[in-house]
């Protein structure tokens, strides 16, 4: 029990340290948040813009809500993925990777702490973005099922964390290109997951990839919860694929990370030199 408490406390150390770092880099945080809010607004304005461009009436409010859910949920998922996928790169950039990896803790403790930070930090950002965007468009969110939406985010985060953990291993294998590869994974998820459009509009071969992206199920379930106010019970079918993806990606992610770490320790690639 004591070792477990010790690991939990060590895990919390990463959450605390990373939030302190965020506070110290507050200027950058303001800029990133501003960028995210402007991006969300830009995407949401496509809906009223579409009415003008198409020259015919359609339910622009529903399209706005569709896009807002997409952009806010993506801001959250993207930030979760980013924070997890760059956990190794961040340690390496600060120069602390060797001291962190030399600490007498399980590697899963490091991963869990970094992941917990990613979820909390990203959730806080997403809430701010949603509030600002809602103020701009006077969104009617009275029918939304927020409990259901929260449950979707919680479960959906897990599947994405697994992929993020796998991506975090890339910089351990490729010193220079590892971080760039994680960006490729991120961009691919954006394309195939139906963030700004239903996945049905994708070509068949591309739509197939949406099946294996956890973001697809998170977005579908979130839209059902926020746009249509679907009850928690009716949301349950969305959770099946998410739990299945989590059951595969989470243990696989931890295993891949461990394998990549052993590769880095064997080939002297933990720390970037020169």
């Amino acid at each position: 029990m004591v070792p477990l408490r010790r690991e939990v406390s060590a895990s919390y150390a990463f959450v605390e340290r990373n939030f302190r770092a965020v506070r110290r880099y507050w200027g950058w945080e303001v800029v990133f948040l501003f960028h995210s809010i402007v991006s969300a607004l830009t995407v949401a304005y496509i809906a009223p813009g579409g009415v003008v461009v198409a020259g015919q009436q359609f339910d622009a409010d529903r399209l706005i809500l569709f896009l807002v859910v997409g952009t806010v949920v993506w801001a959250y998922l993207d930030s979760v993925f980013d924070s997890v996928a760059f956990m190794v790169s961040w340690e390496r950039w600060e120069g602390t990777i060797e001291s962190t990896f030399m600490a007498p803790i399980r590697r899963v403790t490091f991963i869990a702490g970094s992941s917990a930070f990613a979820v909390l930090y990203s959730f806080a950002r997403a809430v701010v973005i949603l509030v600002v965007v809602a103020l701009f468009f006077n969104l009617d969110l009275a029918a939304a099922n927020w409990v259901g939406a929260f449950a979707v985010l919680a479960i959906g985060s897990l599947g994405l964390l697994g992929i993020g953990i796998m991506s975090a291993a890339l910089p351990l294998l490729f010193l220079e290109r590892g971080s760039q590869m994680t960006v490729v994974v991120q961009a691919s998820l954006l394309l195939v997951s139906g963030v700004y459009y239903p996945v049905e509009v994708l070509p068949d071969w591309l739509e197939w990839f949406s099946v294996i992206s956890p973001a697809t199920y998170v977005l579908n379930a979130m839209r059902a919860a926020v746009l249509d106010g679907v009850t928690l019970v009716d949301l349950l079918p969305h959770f099946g694929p998410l739990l299945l993806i989590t059951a595969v990606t989470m243990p696989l992610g931890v295993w891949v990370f461990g394998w990549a770490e052993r590769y880095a320790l064997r080939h002297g690639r933990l720390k970037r030199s020169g």
Partner: protein
Amino acid sequence: MQPAVSIDHLVKQFDPAGFGGAWRRALGRPLKDPIVALDAINVQVQRGEVYGIVGSNGSGKSTLARVVATLLLPDSGSVQVFGHDVVREARTVRRFMNRVSVEASFFKKLSPLENLTFTGRIYGLPAGEAHQQIFEILKRLDIEEKAIRRPMDQMSRGQQQKVAVARALLTSPVLLILDEPTTGLDPRSKREVQDFVREVRDTHDATVILMTHDMDEAEQLCNRLAVIEKGRILVEDKPSALRREGETLEDAFIRLTGHAVEVHEPDEGADGGGG
């Protein structure tokens, strides 16, 4: 008595092609020669000893430090720390060992207090106890109280390195690996760090392995010294025994290696192991 550190026929090579090596192998293309960083190293460090390893950049010092510190896996041979194998029992070894490297590696925007609080947590120290110890150790190292709460990037390199030593001490290591801890420091900071190493040696029940290319430092601090060159230990003895009559330790180093100590500070080298 069981030695603190026992290194037996340790070999470490680096493949310069990295992942590209696997492709080259698969395509049947010629492979680049591996870089031999450590070549059949045998060392026994006794408990309570300050054991120095001197050598130029690229001689294998930092690679050796990293293998002992569980940051590199050996190709063959074994390293035991207090009877525990650094590969099979890495987490146990990490519990009673710490390392200070040439670069003070911290979150530079965080303060010493924040960085050391993080260290205290991941090493399982109760928060209150860690807080008290952090202030005690930093004060002993002459870090001003107001600097303890300021970002580390506002400190000099010498001060940052003292915080790195403090971080190591906070974890109460029984084995302290100092990998060129004074390289690139001004003379005053260098002396302060050296004084602190002396204090650790005299007052703590710690074994110290000191990697350095500073011959004066090695002579002053170490009970025994090994000269390492191209991954091989050339000679090992007390500093006084390495010198011939009228020789300085640096003269002895030149005689043994055929060249003076080459220093490119504060670079750790290019092998992911380096010096």
